[in-house]
């Protein structure tokens, strides 16, 4: 029995002596290879992708609506045609669900300028258009905000100096960026009234420093993606006709 520890020691000794004969790193060569059309396509891999590609492309090419012009989020100062289109579409589509579920109506919509990810080109609007303007999976939430929080929201918009898409809210600024008019559904904002604001889950969680959503009375998760709302809206409309209007303006 005395031999067992000795035997183990011998084994360990032998193994570590083996380990003490390591390799030395003598040379490193590093480079980057660009993948371009000089490389042949691996046929097996391409054949594997093909059914996925065909399925996606077939869907992407489905024509849903028509755009008479090219719309960009850069066309307009405090409100843009494409932003108004998105905010109004989100209002119409999500209010159907919200009203059916709660019996209440959405009062206003707030999205973010950065959330418009591409232009809408003149011509056919396809599924791909919706994926281009909204590639992310963000979903619509409705937040119950008191009048005081709406004041923080409008203050944020007055300082942001960007055309964040809105619907249901009307906001006028003077030339010092001070709010001169703030209406929700054409009525003055009351401090103690509860307003139902539709936005996306990213902004609700404080994205773009929209911290005013944190203090809320309640949250309604619609499980409805912004992109799906756009797709459903495009399916209903034969030809879109968004316009820059007076919902958010600044006196010169």
């Amino acid at each position, binding site marked *: *029995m*005395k*031999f*067992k520890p*000795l*035997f183990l020691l*011998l*084994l360990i000794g*032998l*193994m570590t002596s*083996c*380990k003490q*004969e*390591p*390799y*030395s*790193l*003598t*040379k*490193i*060569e*590093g*480079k*980057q*290879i*660009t*993948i*371009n*059309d000089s*490389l*042949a*396509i*691996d*046929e*097996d*891999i*391409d054949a*594997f*992708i093909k059914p*996925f*590609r065909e*399925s*996606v492309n077939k*869907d*992407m090419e489905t024509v849903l609506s028509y755009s008479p012009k090219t719309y960009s989020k850069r066309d307009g100062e405090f409100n843009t045609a494409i932003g108004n289109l998105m905010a109004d579409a989100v209002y119409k589509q999500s209010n159907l669900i919200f009203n059916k579920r709660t019996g209440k109506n959405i009062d206003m919509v707030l999205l973010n300028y950065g959330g418009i990810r591409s232009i809408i080109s003149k011509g056919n609007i396809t599924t*791909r258009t919706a*994926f281009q303007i909204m*590639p*992310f*999976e963000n979903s619509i939430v409705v937040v119950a905000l008191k009048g005081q929080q709406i004041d923080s929201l409008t203050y944020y918009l007055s300082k942001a100096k960007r055309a964040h898409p809105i619907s249901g809210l009307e906001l006028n600024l003077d030339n010092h960026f001070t709010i001169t008019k703030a209406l929700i559904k054409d009525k003055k904002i009351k401090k103690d009234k509860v307003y139902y604001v539709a936005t996306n*889950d*990213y902004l609700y*969680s404080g994205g773009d420093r929209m911290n005013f959503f944190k203090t809320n009375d309640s949250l309604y998760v619609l499980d409805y993606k912004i*992109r799906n709302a756009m797709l459903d809206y495009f399916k209903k409309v034969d030809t879109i006709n968004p316009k820059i209007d007076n919902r958010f303006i600044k006196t010169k």
Partner: protein
Amino acid sequence: MKRRNFIQQATAASALITVGGYGLQSFTTTSKTTKITILHTNDVHSHIDAFGPEDGRNANKGGVARRATLIENIRTQSPNTLLLDAGDIFQGTPYFNYYGGELEFKLMSKLKYDLATIGNHDFDNGIDGLYAQLPHASFNFVSANYDFSNTVMDTHVKPYQIFKKEGIKIGVFGLGIRLNGLVDKNMYKETQYLDPIEAAQEMTRILKTDEQCDLIICLSHLGYHYSNSPKKISDLNLAKATKDIDLIIGGHTHTFLPKPTVAQNLEGKNVLVNQVGCYGINLGKIDFYFEPDSTKKAEGKSIIV
């Protein structure tokens, strides 16, 4: 009693001979230069198809089917190859929206990726969405600074993995970016972000001291460098603050480097830092040449970039 002792002695002796035999075998194969090739991608973002000829920036570049050909050619020349990805495999084309990452993982498995780390966009369908795609990945994920123990990913991500290629021991560990403020908490849930430098120090201790690895690679999604906040943890800052890492493969910042960066670590030794942009446009290739100590003493190494 004496007879029993004798039997034990005899067993011990034969065991030693057997071990010695294995030892000799492993030593004899090392009398030549061994080349280890590390291939890597980052931020492929669901770019499965090549860019079209009309694309304003990357016309006709990228594409998984072409990458497959390139990797296969390299493997034929360098059998000791590891293929790694530094995260953000997901999000960027409708393939991800449609199939949730299934196609990305299946293709990476077909290309025989060995290992990947997790990027912030890999949480875009939530941690449950990532977990749901794991059966499609034949490769493993490593992260040393994401603690998944209170999530569905628990036990599915290891801090590091060790590979052996012709007697060369290669340790690869992963590092991820801070998720708070970058990813919705509802997406990453109870994933805990740990300090990357502390995690890296622990990893190099394990891989260098305990495991005696010949080559240590960090697969990072921290970002190459942030010029607006230069103190923020990044690959260049990680290189400076640690030791014993040979190569940092980066991601997140979509940085196109003219060539791999040679940085200096805590001990003033060279560390290679590389990142190859995004969208599968480039493949990084780093060759490490090893010689057994018996043929050449370690007198430093040459780096050709």
